[in-house]
């Protein structure tokens, strides 16, 4: 390890790829001494739509939270968009899991979307008309323009998920982290969300998504990270989506249903491997 590099506080050391959207080096995260992420080394290039897949408790959400500096790291370093996290916060978007907030909270859908602009608005300044206009535009993009004034508990689960997505859109970020944006939404909503994610990628942004549905992974994403506390595999989905990798990720826990899902996803793409 070339120590002299570390003490001059360069934005990026040789262990990180400056062109990667997200570069994780040697990261370990533990909750009460139990490691949740162990020695994670991972680069995700810019401009991809990446899925982070793994069994429950594999550290998928923790990886996202570590990237956003929401949980303390035991060791390791992370660079986003080639820089320290604190330096690029304004270029990062985040969609937390839907269950983490109280949907009974007295705010409207528009209020929630406006929260994506709070950093831009700055301290001590109120939300103004132009901010609300931007938020309306984002709501319109996810098909919720008619629900802007509705209190958020009176939205369906899929609509709530789309409100979170709109809040991320309004952040106008270069790198997005999304924690299970497809969780418990109906088929139509899933397609609507996917369309938005693809349009983000097509406009050059990087979207990193924690995903739990093996059946759709193959079709939706172009980059795959297989995680089970340690990194199992990462790379272009055509190369990484193999039965060996999935077995290694899920161990004995790959249920029949998931195995069937894998088979379906692979059969549909004509990429069956021995």
């Amino acid at each position: 390890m070339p120590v002299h590099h570390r003490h001059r506080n360069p934005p990026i050391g040789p262990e990180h790829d400056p062109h990667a959207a997200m570069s994780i080096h040697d990261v370990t995260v533990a909750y009460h001494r139990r490691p949740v992420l162990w020695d994670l080394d991972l680069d995700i290039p810019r401009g991809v739509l990446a899925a982070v897949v793994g069994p429950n408790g594999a550290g998928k959400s923790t990886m996202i939270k570590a990237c956003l500096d929401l949980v303390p790291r035991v060791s390791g370093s992370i660079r986003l968009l080639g820089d320290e996290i604190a330096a690029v916060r304004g270029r990062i978007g985040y969609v937390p899991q839907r269950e983490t907030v109280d949907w009974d909270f007295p705010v409207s859908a528009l209020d929630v979307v406006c929260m994506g602009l709070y950093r831009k608005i700055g301290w001590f300044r109120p939300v103004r008309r132009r901010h609300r206009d931007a938020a309306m535009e984002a709501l319109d993009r996810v098909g919720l323009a008619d629900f802007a004034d509705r209190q958020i508990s009176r939205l369906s689960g899929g609509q709530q998920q789309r409100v979170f997505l709109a809040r991320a859109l309004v952040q106008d970020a270069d790198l997005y982290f999304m924690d299970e944006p497809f969780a418990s939404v109906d088929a139509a909503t899933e397609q609507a969300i996917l369309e938005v994610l693809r349009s983000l990628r097509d406009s050059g942004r990087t979207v990193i998504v924690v995903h739990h549905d093996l059946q759709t992974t193959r079709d939706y994403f172009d980059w795959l990270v297989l995680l089970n506390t340690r990194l199992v595999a990462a790379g272009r989905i055509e190369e990484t989506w193999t039965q060996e990798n999935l077995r290694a990720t899920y161990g004995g826990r790959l249920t029949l249903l998931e195995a069937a899902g894998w088979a379906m996803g692979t059969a549909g793409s004509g990429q069956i491997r021995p």
Partner: protein
Amino acid sequence: MNGEIATIFAMAAQPFTAATAGEGDFLRILLLQDFNTRVVVAGAMLLGAVGGVVGTFLLLRRRALMGDVLGHAMLPGVAAAFLATQALGLDRSLLVLLLGGGIAATLAGLAVIGLRRVSRLDDDATMAIVLSGFFGLGVVLLSVVQASGGGGQAGLEDFVFGKTASMVTSDVVVIAIGGLLVASLAVLFFKELRLLCFDDAFAASLGRPVMGLDLLLLSMTVVTALVGLQAVGLILVVALLVIPAAAARFLTDDLRWTVAGSSIIGAMGCWVGVTVSAAAPGLPAGAMIVLATAGLFVVALLVGPKRGLLPRWSLGRSLRRAVGRDHLLRSMLECREATGNAEITADALITNRFWSTGGLAGLLRVARRAGEVIQIDRDRWRLTDRGEIEAAAMVRNHRLWEHYLLAYAHLAPSHVDRAADRIEHVLDPVLVRRLETELGALVDAGSPASPHPLIEDPSVGDVGATGGEDR
């Protein structure tokens, strides 16, 4: 044994030196004709308003009990400050005592936050530990104060149960300054506090200092509890923080209005409590304030327009009525379509929909009053022109939905009728338009044909669908 605790409760029972009690001239009190009354009412209302503002954020941050912790934690601070001034030979000063209480409360708040971080204990256990620990220390210090037997100790009891009725102008000035401070912080940081309470992870992802904002909320609570000591005392101050905020949640679904409503409820509760206790000397004002505020909470719980019990009940009732009316009009139209006869008997309707005789009679009565049906004779009814138009629109929506379910949800034709029944009453125009585009050509000719026979033969009626009908 337990002499100190006995003393505390003896204090509670003490009648207040009610300067405003006078001869019980209720009108004089109500009209604020005495300067003293004006001082007390102004102070109490200010306090209620401030408590309502801070309490809303505390409640939404799920820290409602923090007010209780901070209140109780002030006792050792106040007692220690008293002992310190005595040891230094100084005069007892309100500001020094409040400072002591404030320091102790801040320490308690930090202890709660710190314990939560380093231990794996739940919030309620953490708060209970800190609350009882600080209060225990306070009771010990209070007994030391009493043993020391100094002349100025009489004032200490005011902090435990408040001294609303004997508030003086300087007390109100203290409340006003504290209140102004807290209110301006709430305005300045409104946006950030809203974000903190709703989604702290997202706030952190934006680079907002979550811990710093929590400390801001903590200090706002400490200031509120401190000035609240004057009115209701440290045991009941939690009421001013929690009850108005909880009541306001039944009134509105907008945070700005929740804050405003909460502070109005807090102020009103304080005003009612002070007025009642002034009119009935001997009733402790602090406790009366809490009772009055609790009374307002019950009112909000019952009639609050957003989540109150009565509005929700009447909404349910009007929805049931609307559903019943929709079903009646549609059945009449369907019976006419099936038989070709505009005059419809109650029997035919009952066969069509499995109504009870009484239920049907009620529905017909309502529809007749609304001018949607006409009674021809004892047993026969007919749709009016207006009823006809309404029914046609409803049948159209119903069948659109039936066809949608048939095409997309793969329901059996015998089941779509009931499934459509459940949903059609909540179809809004947006959804209807989407249905029309989905189903395309099918709807061009007005109402599409029903996908199932209109008059159900009870002998073949499917068991599964009739089970949940017309409760």
